[in-house]
């Protein structure tokens, strides 16, 4: 007679922590964790000890004190009497501004270059390959400085615009390209201008509505409505009509040469342009490679199938290839956006007042609070990077392959 018994239950012995593969990895991870924590604790303890020995302490009180310095580009109210905290906020906004602008243009450059790299035209293909290789293989700091130096050396100084037969003149009488930046007319929003703005926003909604209707009509009945000129008409005609109905509430403030500089109008500073452009073309080269990889990842059969249905090459790209390629393109694109944001910290090389230049540069220097400032900087970049990742991940989830 046989009896079925459970295999003897092995009781846990400490030696199993090393000998048993089930537990061994946990043991080593635990040891590694302890070592890591002790190293960090040692560094922190050493920091506290050294600070005490030097008679210093960690304090954020300096953030409330007047900064005392001026900043050349401020998106919010700021004077030299504002606090260091305000200076930091000015820096944060400047960082976000250049990061946003550079992300947008880098994406445009990248998509165009990536698609053209796969062109059948030999010259276009090679030109784009040249662009990608030239820009992604030279450090971005060099590009920032090159572009800034070219701007300051080639463009005329504001004083060249002075006099009867000046060396330089404004384009269309309203836009001045100088080595300190580009001066463009600035709209002045008079009373009633909001009505025009609201009309314009409604027009944008209207364009999308018209396009959705046209698409539905096409799918339902096969009737093809014209897309181009009705969209343009819907976009502009109501706003222009409303502009005149409300009595031209929006006027333009033209830049004028007065004293040392142009006054009036809107100044887009040379540092911003140099940084924005350099970050865009540099990162655009990386994005181009992502786009190319994404397109090549879509099976050739898709192109052939679409072609056999009679779609034109441009439609194949826009309707069949790119939507599928996005799945491959988006994840590396997120990290390129993060790179742009972090690379914008090179701003001080051209005198752009980003967060690294204000909080991590001048404030740090004038107050001597290095540890506090650097901790704040790290926190800011961490938060902003996580924020960008979160937003882009939401988008990634929207475009990824839906599995049903």
């Amino acid at each position, binding site marked *: 007679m046989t009896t079925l018994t459970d295999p003897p239950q092995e009781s846990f012995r400490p030696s199993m922590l090393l000998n048993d593969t089930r537990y061994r990895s946990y043991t080593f991870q635990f040891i590694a964790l302890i070592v890591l924590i002790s190293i960090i604790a040692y560094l922190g303890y*050493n920091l506290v000890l050294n600070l005490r020995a030097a008679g210093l302490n960690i304090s954020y009180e300096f953030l409330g004190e007047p900064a*005392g310095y*001026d900043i050349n580009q401020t998106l919010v109210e700021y004077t030299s009497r504002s606090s260091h905290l305000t200076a930091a906020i000015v820096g944060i906004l400047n960082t976000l501004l250049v990061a946003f602008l550079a992300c947008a243009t880098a994406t445009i450059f990248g998509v165009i270059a990536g698609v053209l790299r796969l062109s059948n035209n030999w010259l276009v293909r090679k030109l784009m390959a040249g662009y990608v290789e030239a820009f992604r293989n030279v450090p971005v700091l060099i590009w920032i400085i090159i572009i800034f*130096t070219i701007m300051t050396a080639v463009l005329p100084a504001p004083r060249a615009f002075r006099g009867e037969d000046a060396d330089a003149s404004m384009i269309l009488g309203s836009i001045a390209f100088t080595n300190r930046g580009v001066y463009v007319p600035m709209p002045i929003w008079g009373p009633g201008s909001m009505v025009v703005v609201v009309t314009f926003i409604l027009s944008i909604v209207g364009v999308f509505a018209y396009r959705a209707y046209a698409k539905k009509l096409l799918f339902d009945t096969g009737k093809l409505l014209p897309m181009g000129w009705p969209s343009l008409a819907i976009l502009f005609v109501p706003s222009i009509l409303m502009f005149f109905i409300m009595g031209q509430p929006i006027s333009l403030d033209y830049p004028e040469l007065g004293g040392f*500089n142009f006054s009036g109008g809107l100044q887009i500073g040379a540092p911003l342009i140099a940084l924005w452009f350099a970050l865009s073309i540099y990162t655009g080269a990386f994005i181009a490679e992502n786009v190319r990889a994404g397109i090549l990842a879509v099976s050739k059969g898709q192109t052939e199938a679409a072609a056999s249905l009679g779609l034109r090459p441009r439609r194949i790209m826009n309707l069949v290839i790119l939507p599928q390629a996005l799945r491959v393109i988006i994840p590396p694109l997120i990290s390129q956006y993060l790179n742009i944001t972090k690379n914008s910290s090179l701003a001080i090389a051209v005198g752009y007042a980003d967060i690294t230049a204000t909080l991590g*540069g001048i404030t740090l220097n*004038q107050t*001597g609070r290095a*540890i506090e*400032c650097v901790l704040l900087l790290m926190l800011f970049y961490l938060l902003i990077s996580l924020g960008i990742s979160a937003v882009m991940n939401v988008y990634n989830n929207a475009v990824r392959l839906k599995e049903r």
Partner: protein
Amino acid sequence: MKKSVFLGALTVAGLTAGAAAAATLDDVKARGTLNCGVTTGLVGFAAPDSNGNWDGFDVGVCRAVAAAVLGDPQAVEFVPTTGKTRFTALASGEIDMLARNTTWTFSRDVDLKFEFVGVNYYDGQGFMVPKELGVSSAKDLDGATVCIQTGTTTELNLADYFRKNSMNYEPVPIETNAEAQQQYLAGACDVYTTDASGLAATRAAFEDPSAHVLLPEIVSKEPLGPLVRHGDNEWGDVVRWTLNALIAAEELGVTSANIADMASAAGDSPEINRLLGTEGNLGEMLGLEADWAVKAISAGGNYGELFEKNIGETTPIGLARGLNAQWTDGGLLYSPPFR
């Protein structure tokens, strides 16, 4: 010390601040060289010559200290620092002393925990503009674009001056003097502002110095001097009294030409004897050789000789002694007595 060596690799924004607190004198002697922080290049004050040897007025102070401590004015490791990096470099122990036309201010002395050992140049902030702008006073600078070295006291003085006079300006922050020079010459800014001595030195390096004028206004007090870390008083004393020895030597008529004679035997003047170590034991009190001051003065001459050779009226920089004359000549230089 071990801690600071270990952390050296991990220095994250002054993580090691203040680790190398005491006994800098012993460190320097053991190392055999003096680590001296200077500018990244300002002709006349500190700049490498065509052979790569550092030369200048601030460099002279470094060499005098090296001569006093190590007996060799060449035993200096020059560490170029920017306005931003200088204090971190000193606080972390990367350099033993900083001689980089640095303004003595309350907060740097008290809050940043440094010790200014004296003043080697009494300066003030000035403005330089191209002559063709036709500006004759700083009061006419409303609306100008101003190039400024970031991380300096001039940045704050500039903001105060324009605010006080209700004028506007657009600052262009620049990291180093060389970049500022390039921006200014390209016309990216109308005005360059920094210490008047620095402006004179910068202008001297231009292709056509006569096309640029220094405006008459001096908008701040900028006493420039060497500094060391707080808390190491012995080392502070060495640097302070080396500087004083250079100043006292000029007052007492001791020059690099006659010092060998004067130091060979005790003379008639007791103060010169004490300074040169032929009488008393001042050197021993500092922890140095008896002839420490002889070596310091022989290194590049006394204060007046250093001034004339590097930035004086016979040089392209052409600065007058002005406030930097001896107190006996109506200036502010006044060394405490060697006794």
